[in-house]
């Protein structure tokens, strides 16, 4: 069965007809040629497809497209504004926080969301004070919050450096 839906992808409204079994990830990659979100597992286990779905990080391989008619999707590509890289993307370049690059767009989207979540006081499993208004993104907070994004190249140490540099918790190391 097919359905026609509209998605706003990186600021552009796109109307498309999909099989009702199509995930948001396949809608992006196979229907709209938006391949910034990567497919590493298709089961919500690796994080490489991470995008911002209506402003929050989400795994589009676990979301059916028909259930997200009208949604707003921002990919790592769409995080750039006026041709300028997002500060997180810039920090990934500076820290060499990637190797093959396949997990990277997902890492960048996740990191952008982590900064916002911490700013809003969302606690994680390692947050000492659950009622704090803001969470300081020290290394253990960053590592914990970025652990849904696997990197087989093993860039984790540099990923934490990159996120800490944007969060301002790297002591100016970079």
């Amino acid at each position, binding site marked *: 069965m097919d359905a026609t839906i509209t998605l706003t992808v990186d600021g552009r409204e796109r109307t498309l007809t999909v099989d009702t079994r199509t995930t948001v990830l396949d809608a992006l990659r196979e229907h709209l040629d938006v391949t910034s979100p*990567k*497919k590493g597992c298709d*089961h919500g286990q690796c994080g490489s497809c991470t995008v911002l779905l209506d402003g929050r990080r989400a795994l589009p391989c676990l979301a059916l497209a028909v259930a997200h008619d009208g949604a707003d999707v921002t990919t790592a590509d769409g995080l750039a504004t006026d041709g300028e*890289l997002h500060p997180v993307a810039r920090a990934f370049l500076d820290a*060499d926080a990637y*190797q093959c*690059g396949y997990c990277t767009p997902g890492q960048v989207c996740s990191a952008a969301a982590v900064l916002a979540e911490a700013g809003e006081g969302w606690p994680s499993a390692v947050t000492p004070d659950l009622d704090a208004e803001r969470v300081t993104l020290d290394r253990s907070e960053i590592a914990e919050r970025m652990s849904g994004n696997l*990197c087989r*190249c093993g860039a*984790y140490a540099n990923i934490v450096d990159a996120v800490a540099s944007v969060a301002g918790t790297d002591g100016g190391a970079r």
Partner: protein
Amino acid sequence: MSTPEMLTPRAMGTPRRRVEGPAKVTGTARYAAEHPLDRPVHLHPVLATIPRGRVTAIDTSAAEAVDGVVAVLTTRDADALADTSDREFTVLQDDEIGFRGQYVGAVLADTPEAAREGADRVEVTYEQDDFRAVLDPDAGELYAPDAVNPAFATDSVIGDADAALGEAEVVVDATYTTATTHNNPLEPHSSIVVWEPDGGRFTIFDSTQGVSTTRSNVATVFGMDEADVDVISPHVGGGFGSKGNLHANVVLACLAARRVPGRPVKYPLTRQQMFSLVGYRTPTIQHVRLGATREGRLSALVHDVVEQTSRTKEFAEQTATYSRSVYAAPHRRTTHRLDMLDVPVPSWMRAPGECPGSFAAEVAMDELAVACDVDPVELRIRNEPDADPETGKPFSSRHLVECLRRGADRFGWSRRDPTPRARLVDGWWSGTGVAASAYPTNRSPGSGATIRYHRPAADGAEHWDVEIAAADIGTGARTVLGQIAADALGVDVDTVEVTVGDTAVPPATVAGGSSGTASWGSAVVDAAQRFRAKYGTDPSDGDEIEGATPENDWSEHYAMSAFGAQFAEVLVHADTGEVRVPRMLGVFAAGRILNPVTARSQFIGGMTMGLSMALHEDSVMDPRSGHVVNHDLANYHIASCADVGDMDAEWIDEEDPYVNPMGSKGIGEIGIVGAAAVVANAAYHATGVRVRSAPMLVDHFLD
């Protein structure tokens, strides 16, 4: 022979960010399955559900009735392949099943959903034979392969190790095991294949560690001229060996493409399919015996390995070769024996041989240090050989001792109390450990490179094209080859543009054996030297020349390896047995480091994969079904961000003119060598519990 001349480093050795970085952090770099082609056909395979036997019937009618299905391929109707000598590549040619998860069919459809539904509806009937799928030295006939990967002697014997063990003052005699592990690059193996029937050409967008290898293998299997197979692979989402050899998935996609001439067939593997079709590391059982004086000087070193191979195709991991070159001992023996099973074909996984072999060898050395009451850093220094212990050749350069000393210094080793199970802080036992790393320095002949000069008339700025069908699988090859070319030509690195990953440019050897930069870089240097010899310093627009990787005559005279020392701090929870690794440091001696940014990433990437092997990785084979039961990333655990603490790598400056004109040694694999051992050794120091298997489990630490 006089000492060979090395390139003067100007761009080499300077930190340079990856040239394709902006495309990777935005996701606009196109990986194999992402090339936009019109009207693709999606492929979903049908996999054997028995481990051994044969297909007796296939009913495709329900699949063909699915809306959107274009074609169904099975063992009954696939095109005949020209070369069926390699059973791994003999896809859909007969009804025999050699392992569970083997291809028995494929459904092609206009959408991925229809292809998957169609594949579900193919009804296959089997006749199953008796089988064995789990390594068991007592159940089968172990045999000695003719050679171990790629062409090392199966056994090596020097002196009389048994007699020396009998006379030794101290003996360590223990068996170590490592689990089956799967490479699991984050980008699944993927291809898009177009068959042009006019003239008979394949165009293959592939995720591969070597486009030239894919081209020649496909040409052989299909009986075609290599020139009629184009392979394009600009970006590769990791491989770690599993994309080094051709695997059956590409053959299947090519067979499918012939069924729908002119239409691109798109086949990205699912994560689950990667557990049976694209290689893995064999489990190992390693019996190590060390004989030594009370001061810890080795008199005997024996490393006997049992591991598995597949009835479909032999692969013999060279696990004991690590023990052939690292420590001095007058009496030594290494052996490899295989158990042939009805399982998927094992293959290369990062540092085949050295990775599992170093786990056994380096934990055994830690046991010897404890038995002799000698500091484990000092023990390794005491057993440093003057020359390669087996061949007697001098090392072209070897700085293991310096790595150990530098690492010990930086890690604060001198403050270490050797007593095990002596530090309990907040419920965590804490300890530290050391292990050595080594990986051979390889360079393969067979690569070419083109250098072309441009001087656009308008502004007169010069520009150089460097073209070689190398692979950048995340190593930074594209960036580093530009640095090499700049120094070989004596030009500004920003004027050099490098093209890799395309059979339209001169062929290159595979990104494997940590040989890529050495092999490809040598071809680039050769081309640069020929260019200058022919055109001098004032070339004309469009001048170009081709070069090739020369043989290295020095490898007959010298043993060549990179070395390193790894240190780790481990915490083991006293009540739960949870293992954490808050600190890990690697110090390496690997020739000239051509790009400190990408090199450090490769070192810590290897160390992280070793940490992952120590803590998590374990493909669980079901003996009743021949199936890896934990065949996805929720159940096959790899290290995540929170597993990694303070991790760093550094290196000592090493001049080695004999390895290649850049003076560089391969660095893609050495980081994983010794990494699992150092975690196990630190865990022993923390808890007093000697774990002789990887991965370590919480059970090991609980009474």
